[in-house]
C-alpha cells in the first residue's frame, strides 16, 4: 500500500470507518522506527512496545483531527508518532519508579480542573460509556472536537433543529444516569 504522508493525513481527516482503517494500516509503517527507538530506551517487552505504539497512533489521529499536527516538510508522521510513543514510555516508566516529574500535559488546558473531583470525573466517563453510540457521537463532536452543530447536522444529513434536540437529549440522558439514586 502506497502511503505518502499527505495521503495518510487525508485518510485521517476523512472520518469514515473504512478510511480510518486504511489510515491505521498506513500508519503501521511507523512501527519499525518507533520500535527501534523504544528498544534503545530499554523497552524489551514486545507486547508493551506494541501497546504504547497503538496508543501513540490513536493519539496521533486525535491530534490530526484536532488540528494540532500540521504536515510540513520537516514534520514527518513517523517521527512525530515515535515522539508521542517516546514521551508515553518516559511518562510510564517514571510513574513506575514513583518519581513524579512535570511532563507537558496533553489533555486540553481547563481553567478550573482542580475543582473537578476525580471520582465525579470517573462517574461521568462511566455514564458516557452507557449512552447510545449516537448520543456519544454528538457529545464527542461537540465537547471534544468543537464541531459546530450546523456542521455536525450537515455531515449527518439532518436539520440543525434535529441536531440541537439530539445533543439536548444526550445531555439529559447523561444527567439521568448520573443521578445519585441511579445504580
Amino acid at each position, binding site marked *: 500500500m502506497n502511503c505518502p504522508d499527505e495521503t495518510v493525513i487525508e485518510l485521517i481527516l476523512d472520518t469514515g470507518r473504512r478510511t*480510518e*482503517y486504511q489510515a*491505521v*494500516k498506513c*500508519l*503501521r*509503517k511507523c*512501527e*519499525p*522506527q518507533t520500535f*527501534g*527507538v523504544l*528498544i*534503545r530506551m530499554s523497552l524489551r517487552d514486545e507486547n508493551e512496545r*506494541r501497546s504504547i505504539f*497503538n*496508543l501513540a*497512533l*490513536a*493519539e496521533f*489521529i*486525535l491530534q490530526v483531527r484536532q488540528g494540532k499536527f500540521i504536515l510540513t516538510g520537516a514534520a*514527518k508522521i*513517523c*517521527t512525530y508518532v*515515535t515522539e508521542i510513543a517516546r514521551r508515553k514510555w518516559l511518562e510510564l516508566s517514571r510513574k513506575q519508579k514513583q518519581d513524579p516529574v512535570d511532563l507537558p500535559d496533553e*489533555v*486540553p*488546558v*481547563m*481553567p*478550573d*480542573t482542580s*475543582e*473537578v473531583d476525580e471520582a*465525579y*470525573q470517573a462517574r*461521568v*466517563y462511566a455514564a*458516557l*460509556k452507557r449512552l447510545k453510540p449516537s448520543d*456519544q457521537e454528538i*457529545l*464527542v463532536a*461537540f*465537547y*471534544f472536537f*468543537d464541531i459546530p*452543530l450546523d456542521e455536525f447536522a450537515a455531515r449527518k444529513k439532518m436539520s440543525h433543529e434535529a441536531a*440541537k434536540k439530539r*445533543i*439536548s437529549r444526550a*445531555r*439529559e440522558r*447523561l*444527567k439521568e444516569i*448520573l443521578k445519585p439514586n441511579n445504580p
Partner: protein
Amino acid sequence: MSTDLDILLQLRRYAKGELSEAERQAVEALLQEQPELRQELTLTQSLIRATEDLELQRLLKVVEAVPSRPEKPSPLTVVWDWVATMLYPRPALPTLATVTTLLLVLVAAIWWMRTPAVEPYPEFIANAYIEPVNTRNVRGATTLEHPVDLAYRAFDMGKYDETLLALKNVPEADSLYLDVLFLRGHAYYRSNRYDLAAQSFNRFLELYPQSSYKKKPNPDNANWTRILALDKLYRQDPSDRRKQALLEAIRNFMETADQTDSYYKKAGTLLNILEG
C-alpha cells in the same frame, strides 16, 4: 432543566480557556447570578475530558483491529533493523527498487573495472612510431661509405629530402637495396608522404623473403611503420576502403609477428582503438 445552547457553547469555551477577557468576565458574572450553572460548568469540564478519553479508547480499538507487521520479518528486515537501531532518526527499510538499483550499480561498477580501458588514440599515436636502426654496425661496414650510410646520417639529422636524394641512384641489384627501401619508407613517413611510405614498405616486404643477405633491416619495424602510414591515410580520409585496408594490414601483421615483441602489442592496441 434544558440549558440554552448558547450558554452551553460559552461554558465549553470557558472551560477550554478560549474566551477573551471580557467574555470570561461575562461568564463569571453569569455564574454568580445563576449558581445552578456551576453544576453545568462542572459537567462541561468533565465531559471535555470524558469525551476525549472515550474517543481515544474508540480509536485504540480501531488501531488494535488492524493487523500488525508480520512476527517473522524477512532476513533483509532483520539486518536492516540491526543496522538502523544504531541510527536516529531511524531510516526506513530500503524498498526492493532501491536494493535492485544499488545491485545494478554495483554490477556495472565491477564490469567497468574488469574491462580494460581502450587507450585514447592521441596518447597512443604520440608514442607509436619507432625510429629505424642503422644497420651499419651489424653490417661491419668499412671506412668506405655506402650511399645508405649517408642516407642514415641525413635521416638522423632530420633531413629527409637529403635522405631520399642519397638513396635515389642505388640500383635494385645492390646488396643493401632492402635498406634503401626501408629507409626510404621511413623518410617518406617522417615527411608526411604516407602513400609513398606505404608503397616503399610494401616493396620491402615483397623483396624481403627473396633476399639471402643476412644483415637485413627489421621486417616488423617495416611492417609496423607501414601500418602507421595506412593509419595516417585513414585519418586523412576516413573511408571504409581505407579502414578495411588498415584493419587487414594489422591482422596480417599480427598473424606473422612475434607475439612477445612491442610491435605486436602496439598493433593489438591500435586494433582495439579502431574496433572501439
